[in-house]
């Protein structure tokens, strides 16, 4: 079963990666400030938030679901975490509590989907709206500062610090990526996620506890959204009530750019990472090249469209 290297197949299977490389090459021709270590680390740091959310979203979309509540959960988690830090809560307690709250909010959406048969779009739309309301009630519509206790300084490191020269958010995103990759490729849970997206009835009949897997998947998405909220809050040393608005769209775009099918059952976590990087590079490049903001949106839309069309076409022909 050894196969000789087929360039055409390689291209077809790696459209997102090639797209990213072409994009980076093009930008570096335009701007000498782009391909610098500092700027690349900068892009990675900016991408880490969306990448973390998008990886959770990948689990959900692989089961043929969708999670619109990620941005709201991010904001709520950030607010809760900021107020805990401001009240001098030990760092580890604050972080774990926040993650648990995120997971619980996700699991709540997941339960509504799994046990009441509500469509994921509707259930998480409800979640998005209600959690955003919770954020506003909790913050009274104002930013919450992380305060002046010592713990606020160590909390800042979560978003602004470095380990061996690498920004901590990037390290966190890397760890999350490895964990997701392992779970999807080497565990029962991962197989079940793909199976449910491939054909839920088949999975059910094969003895998979479909409801349980769904709840877990939305809990993962919620916990990762909360993690993103922690990082964002740490970087800004304050939680914004409007944080995370429309983040679900960037996350979904990253997943789709990475070649994961919205119909479920097919896709790779590596693709999602690349998809998030494409969006990050694009944002960075448009700023660096000082492109007028009116044209930026057109450029972003065009790139996403191009990537998805190319990918869709390669899938159709390789079938």
């Amino acid at each position, binding site marked *: 079963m050894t196969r000789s290297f087929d360039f055409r197949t390689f291209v077809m299977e790696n459209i997102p990666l090639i797209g990213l490389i072409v994009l980076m090459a093009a930008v570096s021709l335009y701007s000498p400030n782009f391909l610098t270590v500092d700027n690349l680390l900068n892009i990675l740091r900016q991408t880490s938030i969306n990448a973390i959310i998008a990886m959770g979203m990948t689990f959900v979309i692989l089961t043929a679901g969708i999670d619109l509540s990620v941005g709201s959960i991010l904001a709520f988690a950030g607010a809760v975490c900021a107020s805990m830090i401001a009240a001098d809560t030990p760092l580890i307690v604050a972080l774990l509590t926040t993650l648990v709250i995120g997971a619980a909010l996700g699991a709540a959406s997941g339960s509504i989907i799994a046990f009441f048969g509500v469509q994921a779009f509707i259930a998480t739309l409800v979640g998005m709206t209600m959690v955003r*309301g919770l954020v506003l*009630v909790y913050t009274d519509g104002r930013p919450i500062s992380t305060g002046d206790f010592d713990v606020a300084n160590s909390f800042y490191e979560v978003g602004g610090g470095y380990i061996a020269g690498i920004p901590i958010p990037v390290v966190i995103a890397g760890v999350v990526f490895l964990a997701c990759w392992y779970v999807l490729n080497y565990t029962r849970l991962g197989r079940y996620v793909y199976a449910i997206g491939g054909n839920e009835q088949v999975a059910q009949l094969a003895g998979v506890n479909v409801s349980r897997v769904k709840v877990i998947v939305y809990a993962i998405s919620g916990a990762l959204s909360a993690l993103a909220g922690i990082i964002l809050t740490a970087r800004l040393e304050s939680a914004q009530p409007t944080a995370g608005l429309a983040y679900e769209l960037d996350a979904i775009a990253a997943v789709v750019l990475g070649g994961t099918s919205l119909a479920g059952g097919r896709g790779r976590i590596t693709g999602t990472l690349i998809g998030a990087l494409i969006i990050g590079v694009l944002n960075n490049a448009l700023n660096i090249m*000082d492109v007028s903001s009116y044209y930026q949106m057109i450029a972003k839309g065009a790139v996403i469209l191009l990537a998805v069309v190319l990918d869709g076409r390669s899938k159709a022909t390789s079938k």
Partner: protein
Amino acid sequence: MKKLFGLATATAMLLGSTAPSFAADTLALVVSTLNNPFFVTLKEGAEGKASELGYELLVLDSQNDPAKELAAVEDVLNKDVKLLMINPTDSDAVRSAIRAANRKDVPVVTLDRGASGGEVVSHVASDNVQGGEMAAELVNSTFEGTAKVVELQGVPGTSAARDRGEGFNKGIDAVEGLSIVASQAADFDRTKGLNVMENILQAQPEIDVVFAHNDEMALGAIKAIEAAKRDILVIGFDGTDDAVAAVNDGTMLATVAQQAGMIGALGVETADKILKGEAVPEYTPVPLKLIQK
């Protein structure tokens, strides 16, 4: 206490339709959003003045959605309100809401953002163009006529972003030694202010000062500058609590304070005059204030 208050407003919004009948004359205030501290302050200014002058004030939140705004206006018009103060979500989209009030002969006062149609008795707002000019003057005086400047714009296409940018650019262009090296939108958002500023820092080795169209973006930019350990001054706009605190501890050079509370208060004062039959100007400018350490 704040939280309790937030809950109370939320409940009031929910129960809006079953609110009890009013003893005093009632004014309605429809605010574009209560997600933003600026408009919360505006609302509080109006509330303070209303209780001082003996009015009931009914506050509704449009949540930045013109459709919700229209529905809110229609709702209050069905109650016995004497006057409608509206802070539009969008100058064009608000027209039908204002016409609805015109049809019921309820006088309308617009706050902060104007309307492009309908009969409005008076518009109460701070002069954003002037605010932009004030920021430019401050840059000029601080750097004695020579500086490289970055501008962080608000949501493209909004009047606030247009006017502040216009005033600022006019002021900068007037002085030969001042140049804008980058001008990018960060959508009035703190997170975007951080990200966009980080990107600009990568591209521009020399920056002296940043002018942001609002404080949220300015605060985000400050985080980016601190992390990059660069020495760049930042000027914000709006005078929010966070920004004033930043000015006081020296991390922000200044913020052009729109006096949000005063807009609300002047709105209620104007309303009072209208209801008493006194003449009011078509446009009531609310002075801006440069907050510096």
